[in-house]
């Protein structure tokens, strides 16, 4: 399904369309056909094809669906950034995932258009993105801001919860998250079962929970276990 269309117009904006629905790809192609200076140079039906074509065609703009079979659209964006792709990315999607716009913005996409957009609106968006502009409706921008607010709040709660835990409690929590029993934890860490129980009690108190399931649920919600087991792993999210 790797469609590569040669184009005579070398000056125009070269567009790669990534969507698993042929209808949508056709719609984007129609949108580009109507405009001088826009040319679809390739179509991909999944994330892997998208990465291959992005590398071989070096398009100026990639029109990308977020919901794709195999690797997701957001992952495609992340990988393209790692590969130093210079293509600007316009997301064209029907996802109602609340965090999607925020995640897309974090990864550095240039625009975000919903699939309810008209052919004209899509063409306008491609042209704007190609000129280096950002295309986000006020409403989408607001959605993303709300998500950023949630993200900041969660980060603060995580940091606060972590600061309260001693190194030993962090250690116990990490093993607890593996699903081990008190006895097993004691053995693993070379402590008495009583000591482990007292650590677990302290963890409950600090996380404001009563049961092991609640503790794990809360720790997972705050992303504590990831941070404890991989401290200092401050991976930069790749973006253009």
């Amino acid at each position: 399904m790797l469609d590569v269309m040669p184009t005579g117009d070398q000056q125009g904006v070269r567009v790669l369309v990534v969507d698993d629905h042929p209808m949508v790809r056709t719609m984007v192609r129609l949108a580009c056909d109507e405009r001088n200076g826009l040319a679809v140079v390739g179509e991909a039906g999944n994330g892997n094809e998208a990465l291959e074509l992005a590398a071989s065609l070096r398009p100026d703009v990639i029109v990308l669906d977020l919901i794709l079979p195999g690797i997701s659209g957001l992952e495609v964006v992340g990988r393209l950034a790692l590969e130093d792709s210079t293509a600007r990315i316009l997301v064209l999607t029907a996802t109602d995932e609340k965090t999607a716009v925020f995640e897309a913005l974090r990864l550095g996409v240039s625009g975000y258009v919903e699939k309810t957009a008209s052919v004209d609106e899509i063409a306008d968006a491609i042209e704007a993105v190609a000129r280096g502009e950002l295309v986000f409706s006020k409403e989408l921008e607001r959605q993303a801001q709300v998500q950023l607010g949630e993200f900041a709040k969660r980060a603060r709660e995580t940091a606060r919860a972590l600061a309260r835990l001693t190194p030993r409690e962090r250690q116990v929590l990490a093993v607890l998250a593996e699903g081990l029993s008190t006895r097993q934890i004691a053995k693993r860490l070379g402590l008495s079962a009583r000591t482990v129980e007292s650590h677990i009690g302290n963890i409950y108190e600090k996380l404001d929970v009563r049961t092991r399931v609640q503790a794990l649920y809360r720790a997972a919600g705050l992303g504590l276990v990831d941070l404890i087991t991989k401290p200092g792993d401050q991976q930069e999210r790749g973006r253009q």
Partner: protein
Amino acid sequence: MKNRIDRGGSARPSLPVVNVVLVDPLSVVRSGLRLLICGEPDLTVVGEAATADEALETLRVLARRAGLLALVGLNLGGQRDGYWLIREIRESFPSIPVIACGANSDAISISRALFFGADGFVDKTARPGDFLHAIRRGARREMVLEGLPPDWMAPIADGIGRHRDRAAVLTGREREILTVAAEGLTSRQIGSRLGVRERTVTTHLFRIYRKLGADSRVGAIAAAARSGIITMGARE
């Protein structure tokens, strides 16, 4: 104290009023903001403060009022700076919305403000109408980022993530020791303050240096303050 400007005809009855407390070291800025805010029928300024301490005092006095909102200028300097104040308000007055305010701020300052507990950020270069609208939204506890291009969201989110990750690096005890060290105390003094031996303090400090990638006390304190692990002037 109220300096409301009545614009004939624009007053709509029974609007919920947002009571703004302005915090900015510059009185000219406060006056300008007051004029702008009090020109709106549903907004008013109920207090002004030039320092963090004044701001907390003002909020304590007004705390029972409905519809309070603190507008905190990030240019507030000194040991108890704007970020410190944001954290204090968040801790002491959790129900009062806080909007950070700055001019030509960078993504790092904004992410710091949000991580410390601001409900939003408004750039002073925003258009007056947008600025006022941001205050209204902030009062409803909506997240606002006014006057910033949308592609700033990525660096801001990354900055917040880094604050969180760094907080994971130090334990509570280590943070405590570093906070006291930031007051300029010797290891012996830190030890007697916290009731531990000097030797224990130095061991902790070396571990802190290693974790923060610093090779001196000053370097560690600077790194920790920058990333919000400790706040200068804070009593923990």
